[in-house]
């Protein structure tokens, strides 16, 4: 009898499973950070986690609220300057996977974290790209984790902050890129991977209890499904325990800082 769990727990755990023990992962803050640390605390104890604040091979006991919490530096193998991080480690091609999120995504996994509405007269001014534009093109491949809704999964982005598969097909190659771009998109409903030809993000795995109708209703484009769609394995008690302990430690630590 499987333990009860929340959709966002399924999402975080499914994303964690995508990481390998041998990966060098450039970690975004928030959900990517949670998933990366669940991976480190379960099946990938030797994974190298890198945060753009300069911390390399960090092993935080609690999740950082910001990209540069002291916890990341205290538990890192080494901490380098931000220019070194972006020049030698990211641009240098030393990262196997970049793990990021976004505010809006399109069917080719291009991301928008810049504006809703027009750039000059935005309805909502979002924080901006930060490291994402170069993470998206310099890492060996990209994993994306995002909750699904019609507001965030849109047919056309208001602004392309970071490149996914562009207009599909050989878009990335035509721009001179040799990196793979987004190879996995994990949501609270399903797991998407790019179609081998069109590069459109395609559902390959549906989380237990989720229907295709739910996925379609929360996506702003007609969703494509792989020929054989599987069911995502439910979170194991160990995975759930690790995630919940991590979140509890984090809540205690951030509360105490008040």
């Amino acid at each position: 009898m499987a333990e009860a769990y929340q959709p966002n727990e399924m999402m975080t755990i499914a994303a964690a499973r995508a990481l390998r023990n041998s990966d060098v992962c450039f970690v975004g803050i928030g959900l990517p950070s949670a998933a990366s640390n669940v991976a480190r605390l379960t099946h990938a104890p030797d994974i190298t986690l890198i945060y753009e604040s300069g911390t390399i091979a960090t092993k935080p006991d609690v999740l950082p609220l910001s990209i540069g919490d002291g916890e990341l530096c205290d538990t890192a193998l080494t901490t380098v300057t931000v220019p070194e991080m972006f020049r030698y480690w990211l641009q240098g091609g030393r990262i196997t996977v970049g793990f990021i999120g976004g505010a809006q995504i399109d069917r080719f996994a291009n991301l928008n974290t810049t504006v809703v509405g027009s750039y000059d007269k935005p309805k909502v001014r979002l924080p901006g790209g930060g490291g994402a534009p170069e993470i998206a093109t310099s890492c060996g491949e990209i994993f994306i984790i995002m909750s699904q809704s019609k507001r965030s999964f849109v047919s056309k982005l208001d602004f392309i902050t970071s490149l996914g598969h562009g207009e599909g097909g050989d878009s990335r190659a035509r721009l001179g890129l040799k990196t793979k771009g987004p190879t996995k998109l994990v949501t609270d409903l399903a797991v998407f991977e790019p179609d081998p030809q069109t590069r459109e993000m395609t559902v390959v795995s549906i989380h237990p209890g989720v229907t295709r109708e739910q996925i379609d209703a929360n996506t702003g484009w007609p969703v494509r499904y792989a020929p054989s769609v599987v069911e995502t394995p439910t979170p194991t008690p160990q995975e759930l325990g690790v995630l919940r302990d991590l979140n509890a430690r984090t809540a205690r630590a951030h509360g105490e800082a008040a």
Partner: protein
Amino acid sequence: MSRFLALAEAVEEVLRDGDAVAMEGFTHLIPHAAGHEVIRQRRKRLTLIRMTPDLIYDQLIGMGCAEKLIFSWGGNPGVGSLHRLRDAVENGWPQPLALEEHSHAAMANAYEAGAANLPCAVFRGYIGVELPRVNPNIKRITCPFTGEELAAVPALRPDVAVVHAQKADRAANVLFEGIVGVQKQAVLAAKRALVTVEEIVDDFGPRSPNTVILPSWTVSAIACVPGGAHPSYAHGYYKRDNAYYKAWDAIARERDTFLAWMKANVLEKGPEAFAVHARRSQIAAE
């Protein structure tokens, strides 16, 4: 050669209306106390430069000190929007704010180019994205050796860099450690530099030969402001006050609550108000 000054005198001397100012700190060692002093002195028409503008820039923008922001990520980390930044961009309150927007890689490279006295930075970036469409300071350059097309942005050369560090010694050299971000690059790229420190020591004592140290002749003025990075943190002194970052969201959301908070906590206070944050963690450590 740097001089020890009280914070108010240091800001008075180093920072003028209309300056391009980089108050740097990549989530760590953010010069909050210095920023508050700039607000108290009512500096105007500043161009604010920073990779990760957060609360202190939200406050400067909301108090009408800035006319332009050069940045790569403007949010409250892990919490959400900077509401004063958004109000300025979306509604022009209290005044319009021009944006020059980059990626982190571009800003980091541009500071390094500034420190290296180069006119521009060259890197592999901005591929397949829209920022070059809205920022005329992003251009392409062709490598003369390989023919590869690369991104180019102008070097950052602030009039003033403002940073917070752990220590200065009696000879006015400055030491910082932990997440050191782009602070050294910003100071060396700037015409003038103001550094606030947690403490002034007789001698830095035993340390790694690779410790980040700014020699006194690279800094214009040093002010000792214990706790001066709060609510960010000072590695080895006090932790990031994550609860404060969360609380800021509600304070900054409305203009009235923001202005009332600024009056009570900035305009009617001085740099000594920061000492409680340094002291509190000392007590906690005992």
